[in-house]
């Protein structure tokens, strides 16, 4: 859905960030720059939970009186429902505070348009394979603490399977809860397997941890930006052909999903 320019508004992209791996925040800056280049907003800024600027510092970056806050997170859960509202002092979809009007959208990962991105990424990573002989895994972190954290991934797996893309199976799997991605070779009944990490960044989890769980790497390696040689698909493992993609959040069109969430917000709360 195209978004009308908002020359009097600011966009604030909220990310997690990391004190261990700078690759974690790279996509947020990339998404911000992509949207900045389109000239749709008066200002585009990022703020973080674990890096600077913090969420509490963000208002000192912003000059516009109207601010759209988009959580660049995969799922609804602890961060989008507790931490971000608390840190930005938001009380609902729209909050008037510190002389500004703050509009708080849903996280990018729950938007319908993520389905197309996941499909695009799956095709890009394994262009020559026949979907009919392929199992597509959408992988998340998973935690027993919040059921919402897996809902976005389950929903996407269902949508992709029903999209007519032709995959033999589309399965959700997790690092830390059942079904475990470590069991991919037994979960998949097909000779080809495509794995797309449903994470924003190629940080610790998608670039370092999941490759170990898949068996691509024997142990946790260095961060993506610290490697001189990048991995090459496919991987012949456990009598199957495995294709592993970058985190979905590194997809350039994520900027469009951010804009889609803003358009949806306006449709739901401002029309």
């Amino acid at each position, binding site marked *: 859905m195209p978004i009308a320019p908002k020359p009097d508004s600011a966009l604030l992209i909220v990310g997690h960030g990391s*004190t261990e791996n*700078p690759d974690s925040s790279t996509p947020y800056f990339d998404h911000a720059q992509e949207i900045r280049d389109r000239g749709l907003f008066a200002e585009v800024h990022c703020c973080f*939970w674990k890096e*600077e600027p913090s969420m509490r510092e*963000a208002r000192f*970056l912003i000059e516009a009186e109207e601010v759209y806050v988009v959580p660049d997170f995969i799922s609804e859960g602890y961060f989008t429902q507790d931490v971000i509202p608390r840190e930005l002092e938001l009380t609902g979809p729209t909050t008037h505070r510190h002389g500004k009007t703050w509009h708080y959208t849903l996280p990018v990962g729950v938007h319908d348009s993520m389905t197309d991105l996941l499909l695009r990424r799956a095709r890009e990573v394994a262009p020559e394979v026949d979907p009919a002989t392929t199992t597509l895994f959408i992988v998340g972190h998973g935690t027993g603490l919040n059921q919402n954290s897996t809902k976005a991934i389950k929903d996407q797996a269902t949508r992709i399977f029903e999209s007519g893309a032709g995959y033999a199976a589309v399965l959700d799997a997790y690092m830390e809860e059942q079904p475990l991605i470590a069991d991919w070779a037994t979960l998949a009944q097909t000779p080809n397997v495509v794995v797309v990490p449903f994470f924003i960044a190629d940080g610790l989890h998608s670039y370092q941890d999941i490759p170990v769980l898949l068996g691509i790497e024997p142990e946790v390696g260095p961060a993506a930006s610290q490697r001189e040689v990048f991995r090459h698909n496919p991987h012949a493992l456990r009598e199957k052909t495995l294709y592993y993609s970058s985190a979905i959040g590194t997809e350039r069109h994520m900027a469009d999903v951010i804009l889609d969430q803003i358009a949806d917000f306006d449709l739901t709360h401002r029309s």
Partner: protein
Amino acid sequence: MIAERLAQAVRDGIRQIGEVLILPDTAEAPFALCHHRDADQLDRLERHRSPSAARDLSTWAEDGHYRFTKSELSLRRGWLMLLSSAEELRTALDLFYPAGVGLWLASQEGTLDVQHLREKLDRQTGMYRFARHLSAEGAQKLVADVCGPAHCCVKRILWQLDSETPLVDSEASRFPGHLPTGRPAIPLLCREACNHLVAEARRASKAEADARHA
């Protein structure tokens, strides 16, 4: 406009923020930035013309460690950033020292509010909830051990332990937020403890609890 006010501050003589030297009206650009210790070798520095390069330049220290605290005294040297406008200057400085200019301007106009450490720890939830149990003595020691130029940060700490308890004197608590170069500088201001300090407070709080139960 933050960019215009920043440009005016530079016209009025501001020349530094953190470790970054601000050079106005150079032969090559309206504004230039470099490491303050590279001021005498501008011709030998690697040229950058995009303010977004500031993120890469400020991510890794010379020794290869990740600078997750941007006000750490470890900015690498050897670069010169040529900027064509006040807006580009502001963008670059917001990457070197996130929100640093905006926080300083707010303090100049008297609108910079401060949150004390106890309030910050008390609002934590999830895995950081335990940080609120840190003793006053433990919190004072933690600030001296984690903050300040000797550790990871050269911001001026504006907050206290709580509204009635100032921080005890230490290099961290008395640091003015700018380096002693003699150049007029924008001080780096800390209006509330960062999440790195909160994480350390959680660790110290757990250590106190373990010691009590030992």
